[in-house]
Structure formats: structure tokens, C-alpha cells
């Protein structure tokens, strides 16, 4: 179990709050759609802080303007990967933004062992640090 105050991975917009219900997730999706964002569902079993590219559960839904449709994609992803981390991501194509504007976790494995810090002594008092997931030694798909 992770030892931070929330005892879990705290990436994303809402990890310090109680898990969002489906109705609450839908409200966030509607907020993004009103702003003109495109939603995407992504999943991984390697939530290392520098693992930028989680797997895409299909492409960003550029043409989907109905939150119910986005929720169906999420439900399908949860069904396929019930023990993976799943996050919702919103993309904004506005000039001078052209990036992600929302990101929050909506599914987690039942237990989150977290990460250890490997210290390599180098010259002087300097250390080289490696953040290593306790589950990452196992092959993909068998980690949680």
C-alpha cells in the first residue's frame, strides 16, 4: 500500500477526492464537451510518473458530443481491463493550447503497491535516483 496521505496513486485532477461516481464522471465529461474538448479513454498497468503514453482505448472521440457515448466507451474499457488504471483525458485543439486540458483517474487496481526509490551512489554525495514500480517487474497484463 502506498504511504502518502491518500494511500494511493495521486495523479490526475481528482485523486484527493472520494472516487467519482459514474454520474459525477458524466458531469465532468459534459463540462469538457461544452468547452469543445475531445475525450479519450486511456489505460495502463504501468503508472510510473514518467510513463507518458498510456494505451489508448480507441482514438480520441473528436466527433462525439454526447456524454453518454463517452461513458459507454469507459464502460467497455472497464470491462476489458477491470484491474488496470484508467484515465479520462480531454484534448483542446485551440491554437496556442493544442494539448490536454483535463485528466483524471476513473479506475484503479484493487491494491496499489506503489513505487520504490532505487538510489545509486555516484561521485561525491550525489545520488542517481530511479523510481521503480513494485509491480512493474512482471510482464504487461499480469501486474495487478
Amino acid at each position: 500500500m502506498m504511504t502518502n496521505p491518500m494511500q494511493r496513486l495521486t495523479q490526475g485532477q481528482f485523486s484527493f477526492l472520494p472516487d467519482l461516481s459514474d454520474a459525477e464522471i458524466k458531469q465532468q465529461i459534459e463540462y469538457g464537451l461544452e468547452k469543445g474538448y475531445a475525450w479519450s479513454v486511456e489505460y495502463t498497468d504501468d503508472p510510473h510518473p514518467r510513463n507518458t503514453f498510456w494505451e489508448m482505448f480507441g482514438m480520441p472521440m473528436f466527433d462525439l458530443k454526447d456524454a453518454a457515448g463517452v461513458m459507454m466507451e469507459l464502460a467497455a474499457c472497464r470491462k476489458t481491463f477491470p484491474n488496470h488504471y484508467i484515465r479520462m483525458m480531454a484534448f483542446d485543439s485551440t491554437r496556442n493550447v493544442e494539448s490536454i486540458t483535463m485528466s483524471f483517474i476513473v479506475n484503479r487496481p484493487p491494491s496499489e503497491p506503489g513505487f520504490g526509490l532505487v538510489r545509486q551512489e555516484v561521485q561525491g554525495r550525489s545520488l542517481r535516483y530511479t523510481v521503480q514500480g513494485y509491480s512493474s517487474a512482471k510482464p504487461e497484463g499480469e501486474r495487478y
Partner: protein
Amino acid sequence: MNDIANPPMSAKQRYSAGVLKYRQMGYWDGDYQPKETDVICLFRITPQEGVDPVEAAAAVAGESSTATWTVVWTDRLTACDSYRAKAYRVDPVPNTPGQFFAYVAYDLILFEEGSIANMTASLIGNVFSFKPLKAARLEDIRVPVAYLKTFKGPPTGLVVERERLDKFGRPLLGATTKPKLGLSGRNYGRVIYEGLKGGLDFMKDDENINSQPFMHWRDRFLYCMDAVNKASAATGEVKGTYLNVTAATMEDMYERAEFAKELGSVVVMVDLVIGYTAIQSMANWCRKHDMLMHMHRAGHGTYTRQKNHGVSFRVIAKWLRMAGCDHLHAGTAVGKLEGDPLTVQGYYNVCRDSYTKQDLPRGLFFDQDWADLKKIMPVASGGIHAGQMHQLLDLFGDDVILQFGGGTIGHPQGIQAGAVANRVALEAMVKARNEGKDIVKEGPEILRAAARWCTPLKAALDTWGEISFNYTSTDTSDFVPTATAS
């Protein structure tokens, strides 16, 4: 007052030895139409008794461009009309007898490409000590796209910063390590670790933490990076601490920045007092090494705060966006330091806009096309706490770093609890806003609801909930609500 006749003179009359009025020397042209490529400055001037405001405006134009106090024949060797700045409009400042807004246009040829040092040496070089003026203030500036494109701007920019940190859709959270002075490197690193593990994204060195007898800079960097990495492993998030590399010389600053890079820091910090040239050099260094550059505006209050004399912070913010920094302290409006809310929002717009529209209540006198220059992440720091989260989110939106120093470290249950309180308050408020709640009105109730399941937030609200700093601001906008656009 803008239609004073400028009696035409022959070239021979104009360049006869002696002293002429600035307005007769070509520094006033009430009919001048500024070009797209001109730099336009708005000065607030207070002429001495008996000095005509138009003559004073012409003098400002003269002294900030080519003029000296007397006529020189050597002007005739040059295309001198190009080099003369032109005052073209003078308005009385609303409700402020004795003060005038003077608009001055400068041709592009006056400025060296990509040099804030050169631009400031012209615009604020001599003119602020000029005797015929009691006081002068550079209120705002319009920088032409042609000149902006000679600057590289922020090394990273707020969009790419978010991508690197993997943090989207909410303000970032930080805290300045306290006490500012006296902690050993090891004790200092403890504060960093607790704050980051508790839920903050960044911790920060204070402006005057450099390398004093109680803590050598290398010691600080080593312990801080241990704390950052340990907190990153504990939370699974990218974390950072602004390592202040401000030092006596560029060589020292580069040495410190290199060490921060070797240790894997994502961010370094400098103070505004290092000067524009050093800032541009450090921005180059940061660009080369994938580093965020945090700017603490140390010292700015000496020249930005008083309305009648100095340089407005909105101008400083524009120069810093051009010179290049990724974070800039831009005020809190609700905290312990000077700042009228609308005026402060004006600074934020300057940092973050793609195109800034004229907005007189926010002190913005000009439209400013930013020509795709990267955006600065503004920092709200100084006397703010979790109980103000709804006001802060409403005032500043998502693209801001909210820094709760005392509001984290002074938490009755400890630093981690302080960080939890701030993060929970923030996430609860962002969630509520996205759900369509009126956070200004319902904010206190939203915080109380979150405090029912979050003990650290309850303790924070019990401790600071009622604290506010309601003093009258000295730097507010002067405008007539019905005034037409210039």
C-alpha cells in the same frame, strides 16, 4: 489639448544653435498615426508647476529617444525624424489633477532585436529623472509583432510545462519553505519532502535563499532532490522544487543550474534583481536543458507600487514574457501583498493571453497580439490559505500556481496535513465548478462539505477561515467607465 499648433520651421531655423522647446524639435505630432510596427508607450506624467503638459509629453518622447537638452547639428547627418519618438496624444488622468496620460510612439529602428536591456535603456533610461517632471510612470506598452518575433520568450511555456509534469485541468499547488532563513540543508529538505508527499506539486526556495553560512547551496540542492525523488515515488506524481540559482555572477549561476540539472531537477529559479540580461541568459540555458524557469519578482515593489512614479508591473510582465521565464509571481489579490483584484487580473492576462484586448478597468490600455509567444504560468503567493480557494479559482482560473507557504507549513497537524488540506480544497472546488456550481457564492459550503470527511481541511478552515487582508490598494486603474477606445 492635443491641437496645439506646431509652427512650421525651416531646417535652418530648426538646427540653429540654442535651446528649443521639445515640441518644436519634432517630438510632438498631434496628427501622428502610430504604425503597426511602432512601439507605443503610455506614460503617466506629473509636470512641474507651470510646465505645459504637451511640452512635458514631448520632452518624455525626446529624452527616451534621441534628444539632448540643446540643438545639435549632427542630427542632420542622420534620418533623424525616424529616431525621434513622437508624443501624439495627451489626456488628463481622470479625477487626478496635475497628472496626464501621454502616448508616445517609437519607430522599430530604435531597438536592438531580442534585447530587453536595449529596450529598457531607451524607454526608462534617463527620462524618469528628468527635472521638468515631478514624477513619471510607464503605465503600459504595446509591442509590435515585428519586434516580439525577435524574442524567444518563455523557455518552456505553461502548456508544455503541464505536459512535462502530467498535471492538467487544475491550478498547480506550491509552498515556500519557511522559515526563510536558518534551516540547515537537511532540515530544509524535510520541509520539502513533507509538503510534496502531502500533495503539493512544487516547493520553493525563497527569494533570499542563495548560499548563506547556515546552508551552502550544494547542500540544499542535494537534500532537496532527495526529498523530491522520495516524494515522487511515494505519490507516483512528478514533483519539483524551485532551486534558486540566483548568485553574484553569471558563472556562479550557471554552475548552480548545472548542478540542479545533474541532480534531475525539473525547475530552477532566479530573482528579478539579477537583471534583464542575466534573465535572458538563464532563459537560454533553460531552453537548452529542458528546464522550467521560475521567476520571483523580488524588488519590483520599489518601482511598481506607487501610481505616480515608476513602471507598472503589467509592463514588467510584458518584458519578462519577452525575455523568457516560465513562472512569474503576479499577485494574489486576496493575500497579504499589494494588489487590486482587477489590476492583478490584468497582469495574469498579460502572462497567459494569446491576444490581450484593451481592458481599461484591468489597466490594459492597448490591444496586444502576442504572436504565438509562449505563455507564462502566473504564481499567486503570499498570505493565502485554503479558505480562499473559491475566490482564487474564480479570480485566476486553472492556469496558475497557488502557493500556500504559511498555509501549508503552519498547519496545526503538520506539513503533510497542510498540503492535504490545500489539495482537497482545490480538487473539491475544481470539481464543483465543472459541475456548474456557483463557487463564489457556494464556495464556503463546498469547503465545509469537503472538511466533513477531510480532517486536515477542517483544521485549516478552523485556523485560518476568517483571515483576510482587506487594505486599500495603492495601484488601481484610473479610467472613466464611458471612455472610448483609443
